[in-house]
C-alpha cells in the first residue's frame, strides 16, 4: 500500500515540475500567481501522501491544512496587490 502512495507522490511531483514552467515563464504576472497556487494545492496532497508513507499522518495532516490555508491567503493578498490603479 505504501508503494501506491509512493507512485502517486512521484506523479504529482512531476506535475509540479510541469506547472513550474508556466510559473516561471508565464506571459503575465497572473499566470505566475495561478501557477504558484496550483503548485501549492498539489503540495498539500503531497504532504498528506508523505504522512501516509512515513506512518505519521497525525502530524502531517496539520501541516497540510495550514499549507492550504496559507496558499489561499497568499493568492488573495497577491491578487489584491497587483491591481493597477487607473487602468479602469
Amino acid at each position, binding site marked *: 500500500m505504501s508503494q501506491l502512495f509512493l507512485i502517486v507522490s512521484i*506523479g504529482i511531483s512531476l506535475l509540479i515540475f510541469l506547472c513550474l514552467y508556466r510559473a516561471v515563464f508565464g506571459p503575465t504576472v497572473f*499566470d505566475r500567481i495561478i501557477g504558484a*497556487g*496550483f503548485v501549492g494545492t498539489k503540495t498539500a496532497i503531497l504532504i*498528506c501522501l508523505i504522512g*501516509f508513507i512515513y506512518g505519521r499522518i497525525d502530524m502531517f495532516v496539520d501541516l497540510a491544512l495550514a499549507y492550504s490555508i496559507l496558499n489561499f491567503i497568499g493568492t*488573495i493578498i497577491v491578487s489584491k496587490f497587483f491591481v493597477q490603479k487607473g487602468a479602469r
Partner: protein
Amino acid sequence: MVIAIITGFFLAAGFFFFLSGTVGFLRFPDLYSRMHATGKGDTLGLLLCVAGLALYNIVVDCTWLGLVQSVKIASIAVFWFVASPTATHALLRSAFESGVRPWTKDGRRLMEKGGNKTE
C-alpha cells in the same frame, strides 16, 4: 485488499484531474481559459485524492483517534471547496481590472466597454 482498490481508484481519478488541469494550464491560449482549467481541475482533483486518503485512514485505523484524523483530512477538502473559487474569482477580477483582454479566435475585441481602456 478492497480498501486498497478503492483508495487506488480515488487517487488515480484525482491524479487524472490534476493531469488534465496541468495540460490545460500549459496549452490554453490566454489567461482566462488557463484559469478555468486550473480552477476546475484543482478543486475536483483535491476532493478525490482527499476522499481516498480519508477513507483509507478510517478503515486502517478504526479508532476514535483515526476518526478525528479522517475528519481533519476531509476538512482540507471542505475548506478548499470554499477557498479555491474565491481565490480564482479574486484573481480574475484583478486581472480584468488590470486590463488583460480575453482571447478570441479572429483577434477581434470581445467587448468595447469596461476592462481595458488603455489598450
